[in-house]
């Protein structure tokens, strides 16, 4: 009697658990069914959009974009899903969690295309869409394995060196450095004049610095570096640009050109410290120009590219496989989602506003225009030297998955210990080991 009651109770318990699990998993499907029925009744299309929230691109701004899009496209309702840059440096992380949860938005902003394309999660955009004729250059420059998932709507320079013009003048520097030797000379003068030559910070910032410093020569000399790495034709240890880039950075640390305690300065503080005149040079991406334009300060900011070995201009930029938001392959309304993607990056008002808010430059013809600050105009003059490739995203083939992790680690080690962190070859080997560990 006791055992039969126990079995009944246990059975109920297990059935209840199973029902609970089923209900959790099945909720999405039933929701989709009811949503589809409801949409059919009202002829409404509902799409969701994962937006990338940063200090520049706020929720309020995205709400404005959505309101304008909905007004222009009656019958389409857009629900925003936030991906906050302060919680993770990759918008793709949010998508992975949403894929696992079965709650995937129709449109995704700011994600790396290769892993999601390889996973079959991206919708191939129509190459013959008439709006895409506005994109500068060859549209297929952004193809991945022969398919187009996005397009290059804007240029985002990353290898920028913003500088305090007053400090440069006080240190007697009249021309901006183009080679590593010239930058070394400029930093020595700044230090001698009592300034902190270069300011940088912790978190993800050292990864960005490593990416840009190592990419600046590499992208000119071997634009198919990742293809060669994957084919086993070269290694990081055997690549002179990698070793020289690491050695240059180490010597700058050894010479005391960076701010003390750099690794415990957060990104938000870092920007403010440069804007309050704590250092002469601030290596950062073009998004800084938006913050600079809004800041009140008593000095002017200029910009030059991260130097190269021989002074050839090379502005490291990020575009990879396109930067217009991508559409989820299983979206019920991919066309509507793609319309929103185009609206976000091509609309004369909101497309231009998004460029302005994030310090980007239009890659459309005719270009989207916005009122540029003097710094943005300076940077716009460098954009023609932009190289659409870098170690993190693409040099021939895409960079190894998660390659920003070892770059950040090596960047932090160098900033913390300079040449004591190890020889350039031993640090470059960390990259080779990382790539090998993925195989």
């Amino acid at each position, binding site marked *: 009697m006791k055992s039969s009651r126990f079995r009944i109770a246990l059975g109920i318990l297990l059935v209840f658990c199973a029902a609970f699990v089923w209900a959790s998993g099945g909720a999405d499907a039933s929701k989709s069914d009811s949503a589809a029925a409801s949409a059919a009744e009202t002829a409404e299309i509902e799409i969701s959009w994962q937006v990338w929230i940063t200090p520049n691109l706020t929720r309020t701004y995205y709400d404005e974009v959505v309101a304008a899009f909905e007004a222009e496209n009656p019958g389409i309702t857009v629900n925003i899903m936030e991906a906050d840059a302060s919680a993770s440096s990759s918008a793709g992380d949010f998508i992975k969690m949403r894929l696992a949860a079965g709650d995937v938005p129709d449109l995704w902003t700011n994600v790396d295309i290769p*892993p999601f394309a390889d996973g079959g999660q991206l919708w191939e955009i129509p190459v013959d869409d008439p709006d895409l004729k506005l994109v500068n250059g060859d549209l297929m420059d952004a193809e991945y394995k022969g398919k187009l998932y996005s397009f290059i709507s804007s240029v985002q320079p990353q290898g920028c060196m913003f500088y305090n013009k007053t400090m440069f003048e006080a240190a007697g520097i009249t021309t901006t450095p183009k080679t590593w030797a010239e930058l070394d000379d400029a930093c020595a003068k700044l230090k001698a004049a009592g300034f902190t030559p270069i300011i940088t910070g912790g978190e993800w910032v050292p990864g960005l610095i490593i990416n840009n410093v190592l990419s600046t020569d590499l992208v000119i000399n071997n634009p198919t570096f990742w293809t060669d790495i994957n084919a086993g034709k070269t290694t990081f240890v055997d690549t002179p640009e990698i070793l020289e880039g690491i050695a240059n950075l180490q010597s700058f640390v050894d010479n005391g050109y960076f701010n003390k305690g750099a690794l415990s300065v957060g990104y938000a503080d870092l920007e403010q410290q440069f804007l309050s005149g704590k250092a002469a040079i601030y290596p950062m991406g073009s998004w800084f120009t938006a913050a600079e334009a809004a800041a009140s300060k008593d000095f002017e900011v200029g910009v030059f590219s991260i130097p190269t070995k021989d002074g050839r201009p090379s502005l490291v930029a990020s575009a990879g496989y396109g930067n217009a938001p991508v559409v989820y392959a299983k979206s019920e309304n991919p066309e509507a989602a793609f319309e929103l993607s185009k609206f976000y990056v091509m609309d004369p008002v909101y497309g231009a506003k998004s460029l302005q808010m994030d310090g980007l430059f239009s890659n459309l013809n005719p270009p989207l225009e916005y009122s540029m600050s003097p710094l943005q105009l300076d940077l716009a003059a460098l954009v023609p030297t932009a190289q659409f490739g870098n170690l993190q995203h693409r040099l021939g083939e895409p960079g190894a998955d998660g390659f920003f992790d070892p770059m950040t680690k090596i960047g932090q080690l160098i900033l*913390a210990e300079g040449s004591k962190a190890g020889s350039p070859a031993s640090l470059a080997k960390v990259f080779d080991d990382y790539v090998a560990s993925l195989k």
Partner: protein
Amino acid sequence: MSGKNRKGTTFWNMVLMLPGFSIYFLIIILPIFMCFYFGFFDWDGIRDNMTFIGLDNYVRALHDVNFLTSLKITFFFAIPGTLIVNTMGMVLAVLVNGHSRMSNFYRSSFFFPMLISGVAIGFIWKALLSYSGVVNTLLSNWNVEAIDFLGSIALAPWSILLVNTWHDVGFVTVLYLAGLQAIPGDLYDSAFIDGASKLKQFTAITFPWLAPSLTSCVIFTFTGYMRLYDIVFVMTSGGPGGATETIAIQTIRVGFNQNRFSYGSSLAIYMLVIIGVITVVITQFLRKREAQLIS
């Protein structure tokens, strides 16, 4: 209670357990099994299909330098952390034990850090310990050179240890205080009459009677330190240069940043097994010790 009633009670106990057990099953048990299952596949967490690779992920982890380094770092936090927190907790408990009007105040004060989330604590201490933070500002007022608590490879792990100690010591103190309150006062009276010193009273009465509390506190702190994530992530994100990268951070990084979801799952299972085995060993040892001390 008759046998029939007892059976009925068992039945209803089981039925009443249903909602709680279902939730526990769904959010704890099921993910553990899923994690174990994913570990046998090659999957990036993105593709719809997974490739079965048997034990490859579990074998690979044993040779993974990054995993083994993060394990070492985790033990660096867990072993000294457990010792420091429990020693300090016990000492503080003995010091504030009593029936003075201040004892409740002490208990509340010590317990307070436990009420704050790890993320908030991370931000608070980051603001205190960063290079231009409050502590260094105070030091500069005394003409002491700033210390790079979080950016130095040598100091960052100790800073994390300090913050976690601060966070946990109050809770442990409260548990030890509860243990102290349960010790009969007669024992101390007898010991006093017999001329036992304070130290002798501690070693012969207090410490043995605190054995059950010690077991709970050691397990609580050790497992907490082995799972260290939130405070470290906010304060250093595992840096600088991987100096504070615990297993939990390494697992998340591998699974999400590096798109190696199944390999990350296998690391998580290793973490579970390591914590489980060590916890069982510690528990067995401390329970045996409890029995010896009480007898």
